[in-house]
């Protein structure tokens, strides 16, 4: 069952990712990207990371992609559809991308067993806790300083976005 779910979700994610990149209309591209992100959230659920899956749906699909759609609607869609959709360097880019994919897949096929690391048995033996609970505990103890820095980063991003999008500064 897990195997079937993984392959179904993975095929969905890859197909929607390709369609995101290949769609002429930016609105369609954004909708395909939303589907791909939802598929990735499903994969997170499959890996028992419920909290990150919920954050993925809330922040990415509910926040970032709505922002993208707003901006696509603000800049004229019709003009961008009529333009040529590949840039001048697309042949080089395609070759570089395919070579990179071949290298990564070769590495993973020949040396993939290195990544089959085993978990510490004592960690598995522990009584299972709720995923959100354990993420929250680690986030507010071990990673407290990075958490605070991330909040400052978000504040800077808010101010920066307002300043950039304002008409007369």
């Amino acid at each position, binding site marked *: 069952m897990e195997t079937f779910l993984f392959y179904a979700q993975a095929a969905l994610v890859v197909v929607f990712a390709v369609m995101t990149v290949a769609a002429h209309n930016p609105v369609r*591209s954004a909708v395909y990207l939303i589907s791909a992100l939802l598929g990735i959230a499903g994969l997170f659920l499959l890996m028992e990371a419920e909290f990150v899956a919920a954050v993925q749906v809330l922040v990415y699909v509910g926040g970032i992609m709505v922002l*993208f759609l707003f901006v696509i609607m603000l800049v004229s869609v019709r003009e961008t559809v009529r333009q040529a959709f590949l840039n001048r360097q697309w042949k080089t880019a395609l070759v570089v991308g395919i070579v990179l994919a071949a290298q990564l897949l070769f590495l993973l096929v020949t040396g993939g067993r290195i990544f089959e690391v085993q978990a510490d048995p004592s960690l598995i033996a522990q009584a299972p806790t709720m995923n959100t609970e354990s993420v929250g505990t680690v986030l507010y103890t071990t*990673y407290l300083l990075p958490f605070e820095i991330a909040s400052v980063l978000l504040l800077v991003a808010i101010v920066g976005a307002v300043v950039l999008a304002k008409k007369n500064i």
Partner: protein
Amino acid sequence: MIGPTHYLVLSSLVFTIGLIGFLMRRNVIIMMMSIELMLNSVNINLIAFSDQLQKVGGQVFAVFVITVAAAEAAVGLGIVISLFRNKETVNADEIDLMKW
């Protein structure tokens, strides 16, 4: 049985698709969407190893990556809007003010 190698193969495919999209398309907004795809492929890796090692640090790191992606999208789209206001284009080939 699905191990981390399956997830690594998937994430490298998604990363490469995002990279090709970023390099090939001329619409700045779609280039930014390709960046989101690449960031998500990294998240798949982090969660896969977090699940394999039964340690929750990878999931915390994925949350941080999502935070950075949100900040990046907000600032980037602000740049796109002010660019469109000044130059009437979202075409990456026409944005060449700093070219000499």
